[in-house]
């Protein structure tokens, strides 16, 4: 059966746009233009089908069927406290977004963060000082490159704008907490997080994405990051959406000379989660770590699609992504590493490993190495396997029960990558989340032995 692309026109088309109404910043031609172009792309091309290479393993059929309304307009849900699922990172300054909308009453004050630190709700900047966004907005998250970005850019309204001046070291981590909560109708929201770190500045930012049970919602956040010469960012993304929810998110990062981008994605799913990450290493000695873990159960679908572009000499990238899958879940990892002709002396390492807890899950892995320079060190590897029965027997033979054995083996499998998380408080939180996840799985019960 041929799917007609007009469906999209109905879902995120005119009706949706009318409901969204006039967005702040509309007086600026360039912002208006971005929105229009993006909406036109979404409208014309529709939801990408499986024939689109980048979406070969992730079908959006389920998302396409839902008649979403703009979640910001849903006034029948009241969220007056944070859900307990993902704890606030110890010592972090929290900014809370409910259905994409910034909620000052649930957030910490960010008025007094010191000289050179600017933290503002995106909508406020759009209204009062849109030209401040000119440099970062669209700098790397280009709508024509990704459906996820186009959908966000077409309707972006809320979010956060973080700017660090030259040499500013922001000690306190910032924790952006996004909460989805649909009322009578399923809602969609498109938060926009923009960070720009000037020369030699540094920060730690955590994003967590969760939600309340009920109607499905679609969270569509874009994080756009600009790291100037010598800047350093630790960027952690934790996705633990509600089990009916959808998440189409992306981080687009530009890394200048001597700058460092270090990131970790934890995907505990939702119904369908796609995290895209694109890192452009644009300056000499720029480096990136783009690690991740996904842990899935039931019929969850999680996709991590990454693009690392080495565009300058002496750039390095390291990526380890590990997945643990139970139930009838589906995991996707697509990892493209591109080394441009001028990016000599590049080092790029990529590893994806998936561990299947039973016979139900499936994993699709697509590593791609494109190397146009001749003096580079690049390596990639991918494995998918079941738990080794011999290993389990070794534990049993020492009196350790099977459930504990399997839990220790899964933790052991994931520890290797989780130990590399640079920020201690984040590392502890992520270990805690993974260990809670394991406890919920009763993984011995599905061993099939």
């Amino acid at each position, binding site marked *: 059966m041929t799917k007609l692309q007009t469906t999209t026109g109905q879902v995120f088309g005119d009706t949706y746009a009318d409901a969204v109404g006039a967005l702040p910043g509309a007086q600026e031609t360039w912002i208006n233009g971005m929105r229009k172009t993006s909406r036109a792309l979404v409208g014309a091309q529709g939801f990408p089908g499986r024939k689109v290479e980048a979406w070969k393993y992730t079908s959006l059929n389920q998302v396409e069927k839902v008649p979403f309304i703009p979640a910001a307009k849903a006034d029948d849900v009241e969220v007056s406290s944070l859900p307990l699922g993902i704890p606030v990172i110890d010592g972090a300054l929290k900014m809370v977004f409910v259905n994409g909308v910034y909620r000052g009453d649930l957030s910490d004050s960010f008025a007094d963060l010191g000289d050179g630190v600017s933290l503002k709700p995106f909508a406020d900047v759009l209204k009062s000082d849109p030209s401040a966004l000119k440099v970062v907005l669209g700098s790397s998250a280009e709508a024509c490159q990704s459906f996820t970005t186009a959908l966000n850019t077409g309707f972006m309204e809320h979010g956060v704008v973080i700017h660090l001046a030259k040499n500013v070291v922001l000690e306190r981590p910032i924790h952006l907490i996004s909460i989805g909560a649909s009322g009578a109708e399923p809602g969609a929201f498109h938060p926009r997080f923009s960070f720009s770190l000037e020369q030699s500045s540094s920060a730690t930012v955590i994003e967590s994405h969760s939600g309340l049970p009920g109607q499905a919602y679609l969270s569509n956040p874009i994080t756009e990051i600009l790291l100037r010469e010598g800047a350093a960012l630790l960027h952690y993304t934790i996705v633990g959406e509600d089990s009916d929810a959808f998440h189409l998110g992306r981080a687009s990062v530009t890394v200048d000379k001597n700058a460092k981008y270090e990131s970790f994605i934890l995907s505990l799913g939702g119904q369908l989660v796609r995290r895209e990450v694109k890192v452009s290493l644009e300056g000499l000695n720029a480096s990136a770590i783009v690690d991740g873990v996904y842990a899935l159960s039931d019929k969850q679908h999680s996709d991590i699609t990454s693009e690392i572009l080495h565009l300058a000499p002496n750039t390095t990238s390291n990526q380890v992504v590990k997945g643990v899958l139970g139930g009838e879940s589906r995991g996707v990892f697509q990892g493209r590493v591109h080394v441009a002709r001028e990016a000599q002396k590049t080092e790029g390492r990529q590893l994806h490993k998936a561990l299947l807890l039973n016979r139900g899950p499936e994993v699709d892995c697509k590593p791609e190495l494109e190397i146009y320079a001749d003096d580079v060190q690049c390596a990639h590897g991918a494995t998918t396997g079941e738990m080794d029965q011999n290993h389990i027997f070794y534990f049993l*033979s020492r009196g350790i029960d099977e459930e504990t054995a399997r839990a220790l083996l899964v933790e052991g499998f994931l520890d290797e990558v989780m130990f590399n998380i640079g920020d201690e408080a984040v590392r502890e939180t992520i270990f805690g989340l993974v260990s809670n996840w394991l406890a919920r799985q009763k993984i011995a019960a599905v061993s099939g032995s």
Partner: protein
Amino acid sequence: MPLIEIKNLHVSVQGKEILKGIDLNMNGGEVHAIMGPNGTGKSTLSYVLAGREGYEITEGSVLFDGVDLLKMEADERARAGLFLAFQYPMEIPGVATATFLKTALNAKRRAQGQDEIDAMEFLNLIKAKTAELEIPYEMIKRPLNVGFSGGEKKRAEVLQMSLLEPRVAILDETDSGLDIDALKVVSRGVNSLRSEARAFLIITHYQRLLTYIVPDFVHVLVGGRIVESGDKSLAELLEAEGYARFEENEAA
């Protein structure tokens, strides 16, 4: 009552009979050695006793302290005091040796109605045991057996045994891959665990180990049967003459 009472044990693997009627009694305080050529079922016997899957018991019985061992799960057997030192200890990436040891020890303690071991007490215990077995203390922080040399793996097995204080310990070719110094250390570790309450079953291909761990009984396993039993002098005889005469009988 014997600690272990094996009666007419027949075991098949994928329809092929490997053990063809084993009878063996072991009492507390005794060290039994099972010798035999390769492929005669020595390791099968150790795995069947330890409760590994994939072995079909077609006939016979095994009692452990009067209880039907074959009805118990592998982890229950271990908690009841059975221990198998593996010929090829598995490498377990990501699981620290200390975590593994502590989890195993606590599983046993819980089964015996004891509290979990105090962290400090555990560290002291491990320090003492590693020193005794000449194991570098740092090793217990490393992932279990990963990157350990052959000798280190065998020492780590004896460390586990020493920590878990089993009532019946089976050592499967513990001497394989050991140089003479490591062999002495491992033997000393085993000998220090000999007691009236404990029985050992030592499976080996060579007599060498038995000069350090002197057995009370030696059994010759050929073609899935114990074809001869005797005292330690039998081991010396086998070393001198080999297994040829038993294999001829088996063929006939």
